[in-house]
């Protein structure tokens, strides 16, 4: 049951809108209830061929040789596709946004990096004929050592999973083996804290498991074009990826999608369309490449596993004055979207709380597991679980009511967040109050009286006067103009540069003397152009706190990676 609490933020809402707040029928509902919604597989073609892949039985193995001669002679087989048949057999999904390096083949050539990685594709008259032919393909593998754990994978001497990133970490900003967040001085604050609370949290991969499995049908169209019916959630990703990997102009590709039988993030990887089109190009016939349920569960990219270490510095009155994260995303064998998930997750730290000193190192780690991808809030879900579990741990450690702890530390309108943007439209305090009421969980009257609209901003809107920065994890030998072209892999990041504080002479951190909820007020200075809290806020780029922090004024999305590709 939905319950509207319209007493909150009443002046921020207009109830006299035509559509918002009123039920509206889905435009595709009639198709759904009559069984006529056109999913990708609901298109019939005469002479439709099917495509299935021979998949790696090993976590990690070198491919010594592949013999498809017997498979090619099997009844019903029209084409056996090998890595050499793929026009551009290396891609990364976000290359379309200039983020990251091509690292994943359509069909494995020299080695396989996870169980289920496709090696050979067979196009035949029936799926059964595909499987019969696949059973006749002989692959000589040399099994290699594998690594399945994120922290094992970044130890020196670990098996190198992904040839594009030989040290098993994605490269951020063209120079770091992890994504950094630095706000204030966490180490100094931890020394001043009354309590230091540490925690380790992890979550497993989760398969999206849509009821409709992933797939695509490609068919010849007039004027040398191809029509592609697809289950994709990302039609233009799939279009761009197919055009790139097949080296055809995108205006020769006619993509039809939009009717998705459940996706939840699992249908953005653009795996099926390029393969189906390639099969169609090589046979001249309509080709259907769809996973069955077993393939969907085995090789469908899940939400990746995450492991988080959180260290909080907490005062006796419950104020959290420092929070430090170390995170590991299990990207599996290839990048897909994990690199981006970390950017998104880092922007979310330290959760919906106003904490004056925050630092975070998050690693996108390659392991010999199924590549991970998008799923509902990916990048946020795992760390939010960790943060909230940790809040309970902190409450228990210092003997405080866990909801009061959250209300006390909640961000409020006008507060500065760790990524140097002001919080607005916050409502965590009100959520906590309603939760306490619904759960009949007692909270003190002063906590019942608190509001997201009151007490924020002012000194809480300030960027710390000093932010400790470091060079840990810098990868030498890379540069914005050279990295993408380097024939040699980049130099491993270990040993790292020594971690040196930027300003050793900075005054020691002193916690705020008062017991007011404003955390760490004494060590802040006004941000230039600091906007006034609440309603008049307009986003302005906040200034770096010190000259040391200054970066090139590049704001394009590609600056996330800084990798100029070609």
């Amino acid at each position, binding site marked *: 049951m939905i319950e509207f609490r319209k007493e909150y933020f009443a002046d921020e809402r207009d109830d006299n809108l035509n559509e918002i707040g009123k039920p509206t029928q889905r435009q595709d509902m009639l198709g759904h*209830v009559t*069984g006529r919604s056109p999913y990708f597989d*609901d298109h019939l073609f005469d002479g439709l061929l099917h495509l299935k892949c021979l998949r790696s039985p090993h976590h990690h193995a070198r491919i010594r040789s592949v013999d498809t001669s017997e498979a090619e002679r099997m009844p019903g087989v029209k084409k056996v596709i090998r890595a050499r048949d793929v026009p551009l057999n290396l891609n990364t999904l976000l290359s379309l946004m200039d983020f990251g390096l091509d690292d994943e083949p359509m069909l494995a050539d020299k080695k396989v990096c996870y169980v289920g990685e496709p090696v050979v594709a067979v196009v035949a008259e029936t799926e059964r004929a595909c499987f019969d032919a696949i059973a006749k393909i002989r692959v000589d593998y040399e099994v290699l050592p594998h690594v399945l754990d994120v922290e094992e994978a970044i130890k020196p001497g670990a098996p190198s999973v992904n040839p594009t990133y030989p040290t098993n970490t994605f490269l951020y900003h063209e120079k770091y083996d992890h994504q950094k967040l630095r706000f204030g001085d966490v180490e100094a604050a931890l020394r001043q804290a009354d309590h230091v609370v540490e925690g380790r949290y992890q979550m497993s991969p989760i398969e999206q498991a*849509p009821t*409709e*499995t992933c797939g695509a049908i490609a068919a010849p169209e007039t004027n040398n074009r191809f029509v592609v019916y697809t289950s994709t959630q990302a039609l233009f990703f799939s279009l761009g990826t197919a055009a790139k990997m097949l080296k055809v102009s995108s205006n020769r590709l006619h993509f039809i999608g939009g*009717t998705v039988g459940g996706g939840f993030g699992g249908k953005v990887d653009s795996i099926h369309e390029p393969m189906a089109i390639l099969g169609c190009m090589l046979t001249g016939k309509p080709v259907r490449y769809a996973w069955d349920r077993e393939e969907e569960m085995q090789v469908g990219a899940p939400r990746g596993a995450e492991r988080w270490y959180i260290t909080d510095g907490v005062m006796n009155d419950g104020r959290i004055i420092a929070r430090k994260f170390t995170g590991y995303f299990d990207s599996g064998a290839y990048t897909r979207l994990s690199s981006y998930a970390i950017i998104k997750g880092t922007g979310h730290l330290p959760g919906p709380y106003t904490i004056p000193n925050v630092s975070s190192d998050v690693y996108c780690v390659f392991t010999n597991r199924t590549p991970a991808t998008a799923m509902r809030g990916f990048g946020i879900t795992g760390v939010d679980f960790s943060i909230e579990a940790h809040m309970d741990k902190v409450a228990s450690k210092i003997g405080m009511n866990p909801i009061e702890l959250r209300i006390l530390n909640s961000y409020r309108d006008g507060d500065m967040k760790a990524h140097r943007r002001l919080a607005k439209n916050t409502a965590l305090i009100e959520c906590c109050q309603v939760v306490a009421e619904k759960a009949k969980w007692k909270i003190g009257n002063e906590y019942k009286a608190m509001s997201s609209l009151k007490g924020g901003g002012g000194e809480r809107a300030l960027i710390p006067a000093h932010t400790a920065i470091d060079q840990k994890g810098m990868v030498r030998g890379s540069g914005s103009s050279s990295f993408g072209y380097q024939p040699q892999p980049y130099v491993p990041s270990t040993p790292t540069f020594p971690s040196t504080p930027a300003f050793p002479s900075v005054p020691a951190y002193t916690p705020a003397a008062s017991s007011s909820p404003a955390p760490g007020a004494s060590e802040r200075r006004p941000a230039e152009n600091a906007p006034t809290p609440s309603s008049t806020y307009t986003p302005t780029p906040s200034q770096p706190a010190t000259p040391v922090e200054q970066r090139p004024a590049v704001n394009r999305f590609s600056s996330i990676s800084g990798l100029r590709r070609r």
Partner: protein
Amino acid sequence: MAKKPIQFQLNGSGQAIFAEEGSNLLDVLRRGVGDLSPKYGCGQGTCGTCTVLVNGEPRLSCLTLAETVEGQSVETTAGLAHGPQLHALQHAFMDNFAAQCGYCTPGMLMAAKALLDRNPSPSREEVVEAISGNICRCTGYEPIINAVLAAAQSGGRRYG
């Protein structure tokens, strides 16, 4: 491969087709007859999205040998409406927002129809039991249960 002639009633009209021996009813309906309303979800009888009615009883068409419906009566979602007149269940699913991606909907409708045909006034528990073999991965079970109950309460008023 040898093909076998099969005759059956599909939504009230006679069908006569040749099917490969050993093929399942789902493939024969979709690729043989061209009725695309039953969906493939798992091919293992676990998700229920391929549910059709055989002589009024819900059946997982992906696990049903096509030749076993020889001479039987098969119903699918494509036959639920009478021309432009929607079935009470279809109206109720629309009114109650009981579909999101829509992929489980044909199976849900068939499972619900089998229930209402034999029990026009089911309890909530009986509705839950009737659709318990059907997975909605969008997890919209509450609206679906409400829709089936609403269809029962309407007494099929808007049916044909």
